């Protein structure tokens, strides 16, 4: 997809299974909304195809596709009562009023807003409006529901509540959801599978655990979750374990995609994989700078030789034996809990 001279999305191919909750995750400007608008039919791809259930969507407008979209602004019609909003898609299909009303009431029940049909959208709270927008999209019985960061305007508490609600709604209705977000915790918590994008290029598609544990590229490793990156040069690759010569001695981790001896790369290790007791096949010595208490866990910030930052996560119960600030401590980790990926 190109806009003028700008290539917004290039070489993105993925398949979403029927009934799946699929998220597209990426920083703003990475092209994820462009993909969604191509699926919805607001944009025609300059190259490539969109297929829904084997059917090529080329040339079909948004009103002809089996998709329904939930907009970032929700785009409820402010001058229509809630039930007319929900039944608008049926009205457009020429359904008689009694049928529209019945369908609206049925959907209001589904979203737990029974009896709200006569209210105006402006009289509802943010979370209620959110649910009405979902009901309006479900009313046309789409094969695919497209959601463009619909939770971004809500406060944190409501957002977490709506995540669970969206997830359960998707399971109950069995509709395929394609969800756009830049919030990685949202994507990881809700999705069956996630596609990670950066600069218009698809980085990796996989289940949330898979992305977190086995990032395919350095972008995915750093964008999804917290991580520590230690640069070096690959000196050996054997039995799925790579050895990286770093400024802090040789470190070993699992072999990532496209890695071979002699390449430069980075070893990525998650904060929770670093043990302050020094256990594991690898060890890193860091000077402790500060400890951020987060409740259930605490983040220990340290610096390796040459001022490379290091973050380790320790649980609340281990806090008593945590190294003192300003002291030098050794952090160990298992090779199985680290991954080595080539640069670039």
């Amino acid at each position, binding site marked *: 997809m190109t806009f003028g001279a700008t290539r917004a999305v290039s070489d993105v191919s993925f398949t979403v299974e029927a009934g799946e909750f699929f998220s597209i995750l990426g920083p703003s400007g990475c092209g994820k909304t462009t993909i969604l608008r191509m699926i*919805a*039919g*607001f944009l025609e791809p300059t190259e490539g195809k969109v297929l829904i259930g084997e059917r090529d969507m080329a040339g079909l*407008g*948004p*009103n*002809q596709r089996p*998709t*329904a*979209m939930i*907009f*970032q*602004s929700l*785009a409820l*019609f402010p*001058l*229509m009562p809630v039930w007319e909003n929900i039944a*608008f*898609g049926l*009205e*457009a*299909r020429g359904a008689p009023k009694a049928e529209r009303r019945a369908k609206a009431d049925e959907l209001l029940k589904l979203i737990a807003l029974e009896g709200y049909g006569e209210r105006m959208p402006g009289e509802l709270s943010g979370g209620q409006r959110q649910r009405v927008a979902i009901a*309006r*999209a479900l009313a*046309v019985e789409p094969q695919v529901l497209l959601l463009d960061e619909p939770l971004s305007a809500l406060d944190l508490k409501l957002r977490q509540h709506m995540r669970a609600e969206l997830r359960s709604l998707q399971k109950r209705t069995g509709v395929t959801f394609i969800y756009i977000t830049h919030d990685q915790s949202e994507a990881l918590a809700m999705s069956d599978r996630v596609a990670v994008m950066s600069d218009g290029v698809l980085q990796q598609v996989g289940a949330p655990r898979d992305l977190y544990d086995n990032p395919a590229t350095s972008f995915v490793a750093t964008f999804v979750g917290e991580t520590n990156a230690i640069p070096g040069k690959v000196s050996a690759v054997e039995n799925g374990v790579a050895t990286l010569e770093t400024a802090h001695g040789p470190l070993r981790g699992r072999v990532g995609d496209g890695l071979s001896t002699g390449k430069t790369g980075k070893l990525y290790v998650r904060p929770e994989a670093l043990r302050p007791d020094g256990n594991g096949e690898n060890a890193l010595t860091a000077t402790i700078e500060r400890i951020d208490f987060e409740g259930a866990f605490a983040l220990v910030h340290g610096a390796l030789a040459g001022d490379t930052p290091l973050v380790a996560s320790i649980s609340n119960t281990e806090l008593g034996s945590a190294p003192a600030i300003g002291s030098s401590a050794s952090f160990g980790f298992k090779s199985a809990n680290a991954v080595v990926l080539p640069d670039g």
Partner: protein
Amino acid sequence: MADLYKRFGGGLGTLFLVIVASWIAGMVLAPNVMMIDYALRPNLPPSQIGGPDDIYSLDNILYLANESVHRAIFYKTVWASALVAFATFLVCYPLAFWLAQNATPNQTALVLLALTIPFWINEVLRTLAWYILLAFRGPLNAFLLGLGIIDEPVRWYGDGGVLVGMTYAYILFMLFPIYNSIESLDKSQIEAARDLGASTWRIHWRVVIPHAKAGIATGCVFTFMLAAGSYVAPALLGSPGSRWFTEIIYNWFFEGGDWNRGAAYALVLLVLCLAVVLITLRIARVSLAEVAK
């Protein structure tokens, strides 16, 4: 008013109040009171003014009620003005929608400039331009004859000419209110309606027009009043068969020499315009304050 004093202090505040009050009194109230006064008095030779015959009555207004030709012209002016408002709306709505929702900022600037430039010229001259365009041996007839659409020149002057001339003259009064109201419509609402399967017609009928209602009502009210009170277009582009009520008023003043009857006719037109404004706003459920915006 207290706010005015708080902001500008006693001296300046009072000065502003005096200026506004004398404007309202001198420019709005006095002429209207004089018109009502004239309308209710009989037309007398100077020697009898203030005499025993100079009494208030509704005679001048009743004269209009009993004069069938004038009455017919009055009714015709009313519905023809409504037609002008409607025709102007039909021309302006698609343009306003395009400008507000689809055009790039450069296109908007260019089109608005192109529409505004003719308004730097006096209304009489602009109407005269149409007088030339629509002339029997004028460019429009020549063009249509050249294309073979018509076999002989058409007499455009008359109802058609007046409608065209007025629609052109009042286009901006309709365009700007509608443009402003459509511009504030969130584009995603149109996309949402489209995504839910609505046809273009339904998107406008159910989403855009309800949103732009205040602007449309404002534009229609402006256009109706300007059309009903117009003199130049009917005088230049009309024919004897398409007389406008303002022409009758003009005749009473300047040809019939009966200012009192002219004032009575003008009063009736004023009351009519007020009624139309209030009824239109009631129908559109728009308050006067919204129109003033």
